[in-house]
C-alpha cells in the first residue's frame, strides 16, 4: 500500500512539474515561475503522499481495536461478561488462533467462529483502509495540482515542510529521552512506596533478596544504596586515575612532539581501544588482570581478592584512554599556533610552552573530555560484572570486591522477576539515580566546553 502511495506521489511529481512548465509556455518561460519546476512537483507529491500515509497510519493504530470490539460484540453473551483477567486470556487465545499458532481443531467452536469472524474483519479492514488512503492521496493530490500557478510560492512551502521534517527528527531523540526518563521515574516512584527514599539513598546495607512467598526463608531485603554508590565511585576513580594521565600525556605527545608519520600510526591504534567490546575487556580483567593482581598481592603480603575493584578499575581505565586522548588531542591541536609563537618568542622552551600556554588554553576542553569519560566509566557494566564481583561491600579498599549501580541493575532484572516486588523495582530507582548522575556530569562537561569557545579571540 505504501509503495502504491509513493508511486502515486512520484506520478504527481512529474505531472505537477510538467504542468508548471506548460503554464508558462515551455522551458523558456521558467523564469516567470516563482520557483523551479521541481519544487512544484515536490509540493504536489508531498501533498499527495503525506495525508494518505497519515490516514494509513491512523487506520493501523486504531483499526485493530475496532476489529476486536466488533469480534467481541458478535460472541455469545457468556464470553462478553467475563472478569478482566479471563477476558485477557480469551483475547490472547483468539489472537493465537488467528495467527495460526494454535490449530483450529483444538479450541472451542465459539472461539473458532470468533476467529473466522476476526480474520474476515481484518481482511475487510485492510481493504477499506487501503482504499481510503488511496482516495485521500488522489483527492488531495488533484486539489494540490489545481493550485499550481506561476505565482505559487512552491519553493518556500517545500522548504517549510523540510524544516518540519528536520524538527521532527530531532524531536524523536528528545522524546525518546523523555520517554525513558518517564518510565524509569514511574517505576522508581512505585519502588519508593515500598522503601523510603531516605533509606534508599542513605542506607548502608544492600541485600535485595526478598522472600517471595510467606513460607520461604529469605532475608527481609535491605535497600540501602550507599555501598553501590561507593563502589561505583571507587571504580570510576581508579579508572580516571589510570586514564587521565595516560590519555593526557599521549595526547600531548601526539599533538606536540610526534612527527607526522608516528602520529598517523599511533592515533588510529589508540582509537582501536575504543572499538574493543566491553565484554572482551571484562574477561581480560577477570581472567588476566585479576589473578595477576592477586598473585602480586600475595608476593608483597597484601590480601587482594581475585575479584577486586582494582582490576576492574584498571581495565576500565584502559578502556576510556582513547576518549580522553582523542578529545585532548583535538583541543591541543586547536590552540592557535600564534600563542605558541608568542611563547617561543619570549624564550620559552617547548615544555614550558606546553605547560604554561598550550595546556591552560586547552584545559577547559580537556576537562570536558575527562567528564565525558567519567560518565562513561560510571555507566560501564560489563567489566565490573566480570571483574569486580557482586558483593555490596562498603569499603574504600580497592583490593576488595565491590559492586556498582549498573551491575546491580543488571542482576536485579535478569531472570524471572515480578514487577510488584521492591527487588525488581529497585533497579529503576538505581537507574534514576544513575541517570541523574551522568546527566549532571554531561551538563557540566557541556558547560565547560562551551566556556572554552570564548577563551581565546
Amino acid at each position, binding site marked *: 500500500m505504501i509503495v502504491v502511495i509513493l508511486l502515486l506521489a512520484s506520478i504527481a511529481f512529474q505531472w505537477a512539474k510538467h504542468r508548471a512548465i506548460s503554464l508558462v509556455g515551455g522551458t523558456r518561460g521558467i523564469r516567470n515561475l516563482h520557483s523551479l519546476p521541481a519544487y512544484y512537483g515536490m509540493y504536489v507529491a508531498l501533498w499527495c503522499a503525506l495525508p494518505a500515509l497519515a490516514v494509513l497510519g491512523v487506520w493501523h493504530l486504531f483499526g485493530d481495536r475496532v476489529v476486536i470490539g466488533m469480534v467481541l460484540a458478535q460472541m455469545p453473551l457468556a464470553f462478553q461478561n467475563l472478569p478482566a483477567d479471563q477476558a485477557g486470556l480469551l483475547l490472547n487465545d483468539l489472537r493465537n488462533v488467528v495467527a495460526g499458532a494454535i490449530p483450529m481443531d483444538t479450541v472451542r467452536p465459539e472461539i473458532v467462529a470468533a476467529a473466522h469472524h476476526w480474520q474476515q474483519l481484518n481482511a475487510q479492514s485492510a481493504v477499506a483502509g487501503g482504499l481510503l488512503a488511496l482516495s485521500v492521496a488522489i483527492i488531495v493530490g488533484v486539489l494540490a495540482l489545481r493550485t499550481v500557478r506561476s505565482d505559487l510560492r512552491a519553493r518556500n512551502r517545500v522548504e517549510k515542510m523540510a524544516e518540519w521534517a528536520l524538527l521532527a527528527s530531532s524531536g524523536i531523540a528528545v522524546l525518546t529521552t523523555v520517554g525513558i526518563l518517564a518510565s524509569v521515574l514511574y517505576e522508581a516512584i512505585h519502588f519508593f512506596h515500598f522503601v523510603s527514599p531516605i533509606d534508599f539513598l542513605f542506607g548502608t546495607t544492600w541485600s535485595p533478596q526478598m522472600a517471595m512467598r510467606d513460607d520461604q526463608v529469605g532475608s527481609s531485603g535491605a535497600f540501602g544504596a550507599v555501598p553501590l554508590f561507593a563502589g561505583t565511585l571507587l571504580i570510576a576513580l581508579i579508572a580516571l586515575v589510570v586514564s587521565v594521565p595516560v590519555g593526557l600525556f599521549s595526547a600531548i605527545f601526539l599533538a606536540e612532539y610526534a612527527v607526522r608519520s608516528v602520529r598517523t600510526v599511533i592515533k588510529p591504534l589508540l582509537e582501536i581501544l575504543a572499538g574493543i567490546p566491553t565484554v572482551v575487556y571484562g574477561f581480560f580483567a577477570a581472567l588476566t588482570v585479576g589473578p595477576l593482581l592477586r598473585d602480586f598481592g600475595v608476593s608483597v603480603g597484601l590480601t587482594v581478592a581475585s575479584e577486586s575493584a582494582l582490576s576492574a578499575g584498571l581495565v576500565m581505565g584502559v578502556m576510556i584512554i582513547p576518549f580522553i586522548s582523542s578529545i585532548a588531542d583535538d583541543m591541543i591541536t586547536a590552540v592557535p599556533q*600564534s600563542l605558541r609563537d608568542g611563547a617561543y*618568542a619570549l*624564550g*620559552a622552551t617547548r615544555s614550558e610552552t606546553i605547560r*604554561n600556554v598550550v595546556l591552560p*588554553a586547552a584545559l577547559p576542553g580537556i576537562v570536558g573530555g575527562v567528564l565525558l569519560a567519567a560518565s562513561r566509566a560510571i555507566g560501564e557494566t560489563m567489566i565490573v560484572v566480570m571483574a569486580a564481583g557482586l558483593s555490596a561491600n562498603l569499603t574504600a579498599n580497592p583490593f576488595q570486591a565491590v559492586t556498582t549501580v549498573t551491575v546491580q541493575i543488571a542482576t536485579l532484572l535478569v531472570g524471572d522477576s515480578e514487577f510488584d516486588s521492591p527487588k525488581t523495582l529497585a533497579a529503576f530507582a538505581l537507574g534514576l539515580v544513575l541517570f541523574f548522575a551522568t546527566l549532571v556530569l554531561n551538563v557540566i562537561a557541556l558547560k565547560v566546553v562551551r566556556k572554552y569557545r570564548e*577563551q581565546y579571540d
Partner: protein
Amino acid sequence: MTIEKHQHVVNISRGLVFNEGDQSLPGEAIETKTVGQVTVDSPVISARHVNVHYGEKQAIKDVSIDVAKNAVIAFIGPSGCGKSTFLRCLNRMNDTIANAKVSGSIRLDGSDIYDRSQDIVQLRARVGMVFQKPNPFPKSIYENVAYGPKIHGLAGNRADLDEIVQLSLRKAGLWEEVKDRLDNPGTGLSGGQQQRLCIARAIAVDPEVILMDEPCSALDPIATAKVEDLIDELRENYAIVIVTHNMQQAARVSQRTAYFHLGDLIEVGPTEQIFTNPRHRLTEDYITGRFG
C-alpha cells in the same frame, strides 16, 4: 606564491628580469646587488650572506645587513619578498618551521646565533618579537607580562615581579589603562591594547632587540598611532626591526629603511633618502606605487 612569480624569482637570480611594472624593454638586466650602506658603526646584529630555503624554494638570497643600536630599521617590500622570513631568522623563529634551511652568518653582539653553542632560549630572551596579530595568552594581563620574567627567573620575589610588570606596562603605554584590572584576561582588551600588551610582554624580559612583524596591520588608525609613538619611545633603549606594508609608517617611525624584492635585499639607506631619493629603480618603482 604562484608559479609565475616563482619563475620571476629564477630570472632575478640570473640577473635578468623583465618587470611588468616598468616600461623598460624585455630582457634588460636589473642589478640585484644591494645598493647603499649595509653596515653601521657598532651594530647589535650583523647578518652576512644569509640564504633561506623552504625546501626547494629560495626565499632569501645572499642578504647582508646590520641593525644599529637605539634605532629603528624598517623592512619594506611587496608581499612575498622575504622580509618577514628574514625577520624571523633574527631570533630563529624559523626553527619551528620544518624544511626551512638557513645559511650564512647572523651575529648578535659578535657571536653567531646559528652556532651550535647558541642556546635558543637565551637568544630569544635577547631578541624579542611582536607579531602581526595580537596574540596575548589566555591569562590575566598581569600573567601575560610576568610570564617571560618568570621563565627566565628574572624576578627574585613577588615584589620584583610586580615592579617589572608595572615598568613594562608603563613603557608600553598601557599602565594607565589597565592598572585597575590587572587580573582581567588579556584577551578581553581591545586590539590596540592587546598589541601594546604583547609589546609589554616582549620588553618585560629586557631584550636588546625587538622584532616587529607588521605590528599595526590588524589595528585601526588611532591604535596604530599609539603603537607608532610607542616604537619611537622604545628606540631609546632598544634596537627595533619593523616589517611593514605601510610606507608612511616606515617613513614615520624608522631611521633606516631596507627594501626587499623577491628575496633580494635591493637597497638600504637612511629612511629620508630612500623615500625622497631612492638610488635603485626597483625601490623607486615600489615607493612611487608603480607596483607592489
